């Protein structure tokens, strides 16, 4: 029982609007044009660019992953040094001293570029090959996980 009758069925269009959204969300791929009709009411939509598909609902509790999962190697030849253990990342030998490396430095094979500390054991992080540092992903003193990207470099011919 409704309190007031409307001459045009605005409520119906509202209801259809949510049905329309459900239709778009349920379909695979970006759609260009949709019409839904129920009795007297209908909605007709077309997108200029293909419809941006609504993001799927959040997958439950958010994983507290501080770094990109398997970011893959970009195509520009950049390589990544990853953490071989869990611990605290240090950019230099002590707070007073300067960092082992800075972005832009060219570093030699075997040269130390960072330090990871766990249980008072300090594990030096070293270069395998000659390269120019292009990014440092972790701040001094932050915790790193196993396999976490630490430092990016581009190989440089010897």
């Amino acid at each position: 029982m409704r309190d007031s009758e409307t001459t045009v069925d605005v409520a119906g269009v509202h209801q259809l609007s949510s049905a329309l959204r459900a239709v778009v969300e349920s379909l695979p791929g970006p759609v260009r044009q949709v019409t839904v009709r129920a009795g007297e009411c209908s909605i007709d939509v077309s997108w200029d660019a293909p419809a941006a598909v609504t993001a799927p609902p959040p997958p439950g509790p958010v994983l507290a992953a501080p770094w990109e999962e398997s970011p893959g190697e970009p195509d520009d030849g950049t390589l990544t040094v990853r953490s071989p253990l869990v611990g605290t990342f240090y950019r230099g030998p002590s707070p007073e001293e300067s960092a082992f490396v800075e972005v832009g430095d060219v570093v030699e094979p075997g040269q130390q570029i960072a330090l990871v500390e766990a249980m008072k054991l300090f594990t030096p992080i070293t270069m395998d090959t000659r390269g120019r540092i292009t990014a440092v992903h972790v701040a001094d003193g932050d915790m790193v996980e196993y396999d976490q990207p630490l430092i990016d470099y581009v190989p440089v011919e010897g």
Partner: protein
Amino acid sequence: MFRKVLIANRGEIAVRIIRACRELGVRSVAVYSTADASSAHVELADEAVRIGPAAARRSYLNIPNVIAAALKTGAEAIHPGYGFLSEDPYFAEICAENGITFIGPPPGVMESAGDKATTRRLMADAGLPLLPGTTEPVASLDDALAATGRIGYPVVVKAVAGGGGRGIAVARSPEALRTAYRQTRAGAQAVFGDSRVYLERYLESARHIEFQLLADGFGNAVHLGERDCSVQRRHQKLIEEGPSSALDEQTRTQMGEAALRGTKSLGYCGAGTMEFLLDDDGRYWFMEMNARIQVEHPVTEAITGVDLVAEQICIAAGCRLQLGQADVQLRGHAVEVRINAEDPDRGFAPTPGTLTEFRTPGGPGVRVDSHCVPGADVSPHYDSMIAKLIVWASDRRAALDRARRALGETTVVGPGIRTTIPFHQRVLDHPAFRSGEVRTDFLPRHLGM
């Protein structure tokens, strides 16, 4: 109570512990290997730290990385679950050195419980009945052969550092003993780094009866009745139930009191299990003490209503046990079956793979503990357990009917994956099993396995 606990495990037991933490209002930290990045325990925990590659030795058994993860996330305690680091006194010591509470017994107690020869001596002193055997490790093959004169055949050679059915071999003749002695020593050296072995009379057909125990740091201890784990394959449990149809109230009380006596003589603290064999004359014999939460703990939870993992955490946090022995009332009957990705027709060989379909049963009296969801991988790197199905009903017959019903509702499908479900259905339908006449030789005797 702790604010944050790290769970140094994976699979269903990690999920089980995270659930207990959440109900207690404790934040949980998962650790995981690369292979487990999208596993349920990672998703369910409040935080997660990657600790290594797939190989357990470099991840779940990597003590420095586990400890570093706890220190960095500010976890005040570590729950080791079962397996992995759960019975490693060295790990418990390192936890203590780093100011982290190990959720389990003190390192010294773990060491005693882990050394089967020491435990046997302590239990003998506490007046627990022991099967004829050597109280000390045997020094040589000649000593072993000489001991059988007193013990008799069949005899079982056991690694001092073994447990849970690993590191043991049965010999029915002096020739067999020569082989068993050499093999067990070599295997124990390789696996445990400790080649010492001892001998014990072997019972071909007995009941495996184990008592669940809880002890706090204030000298209070209770037992929570028994589980009957007689359905075994090569000393590995396949079906567990409680109460045992072999115990009357008087025997239960006697064995429970013996278990408590033994527990106290070890200075035990936390949750533990004392395993006995019950022979056909109704005599029981101490076997070993397990200083961890066990796979089959939900059987006890179902019949007592006690949350054993929550109790473990509370005891480790220094709380007093709230349960007295009179509060422990057994109700009804519970059965647990382990649904493993194994092929019962090919010697229970693991069948890892991806689950394309996974549907678990529901309804009254049904509990499922699992880390699997549709799409999950059953990894070849770890054990093959997919789920534990625990059913409760008012009596044993109704519990077995319910277990059968629930197994019928369980769908596990994936390319190449076989499960132990058909095996469990066979056992549940077997007249000997239904009659309750189950001993450790059930599989060879009744199923030709």
